[in-house]
């Protein structure tokens, strides 16, 4: 990629000079008659990829009397939570990415876009957090179910826990107080992905 760019830097630079105009500062991008910038059709995208930064010591600002602290760490890309009737929290962990690579562009863009993302591997699991004594510290962190496919949506209905995998909807039997699924899930339906 870098050698390609280096070899062709000159002709590309010539081609790209045509599309780097700064939009005027007094442009109005909303309202009934928005003053939209002209569409750009350059050969190479001109955006930059944001660098992922860990939280570190930074915390969101909250009103007086509140505080923010992590109740669980070392999760593998948590995306969705479900609070169970007994106060346990289920966390769906996973990274999507079943999209077919239709063009060489998709392969290259995938590599570039991954630089703006976490390098943590997809967890493909559900983690259960429990705060048995109600002091705000979730002392139990355990894997509720494993071997899922980038789970996202979670719902509990009439003793069944429904999990939306990337490509299918599955169901676990759930009893209150469980810390681990009693077995592998059964499939409810395929999902388009």
């Amino acid at each position, binding site marked *: 990629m870098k050698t390609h760019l280096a070899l062709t830097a000159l*002709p*590309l630079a010539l*081609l790209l000079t045509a599309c780097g105009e700064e939009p005027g500062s007094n442009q109005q991008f909303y309202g009934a008659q928005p003053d939209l910038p002209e569409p750009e*059709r350059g*050969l190479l995208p001109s955006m930059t990829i944001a660098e992922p930064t860990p939280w570190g010591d930074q915390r969101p600002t909250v009103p007086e009397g509140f505080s923010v602290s992590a109740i669980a760490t070392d999760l593998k890309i948590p995306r969705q939570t479900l609070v169970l009737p007994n106060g346990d929290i289920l966390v769906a962990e996973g990274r999507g990415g079943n999209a077919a690579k*239709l*063009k*060489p*562009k998709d392969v290259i863009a995938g590599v570039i876009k991954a630089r703006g993302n976490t390098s943590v591997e997809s967890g493909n699991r559900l983690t259960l957090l429990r705060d048995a004594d109600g002091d705000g510290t979730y002392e139990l962190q355990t894997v509720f179910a494993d071997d899922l496919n980038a789970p996202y949506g979670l719902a509990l209905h009439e003793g069944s826990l429904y999990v939306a995998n990337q490509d299918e909807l599955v169901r676990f039997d759930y009893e209150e107080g469980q810390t681990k699924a009693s077995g592998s899930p059964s499939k409810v339906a395929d999902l388009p992905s």
Partner: protein
Amino acid sequence: MTTTTATPHAYPNILSPLHATLLCGQVPLFLGALIADIAYYRSYQIQWSNFASWLIAGALVFAGLALLFALVGLFRRRNPRPLTYFLLLLVTWVLGFINALEHAKDAWAVMPMGLALSVIVTLLAIVATWAGMAQPRTGDAR
């Protein structure tokens, strides 16, 4: 011009088998991309555009490696390869790369520039391959 040292090669400009394979291999790949582009232009089926993208990528690999051979060939002490061949291949590759970027656009944004570039690059690839495979006529050996 006297034949005191018998030339070891009967054909002084013959390409090595690998060089020849790489050079000739780009032609059907660029041609395939052109045909896919024509099919897309006529049918509006985006899949043809995907095919063209991959064929161009493959052609660039072949042409790029052949270009390395051609570059090295310029500096051979005995029978250096003609500069025109190298330049033709270089232009083919650069335009082919621009064509690859053009084909990276979404759907119909590829047209009509992608098709036009495919025609040009295919013709250039054929000419460059011709120049690379051609033998100098008896008498004007370098």
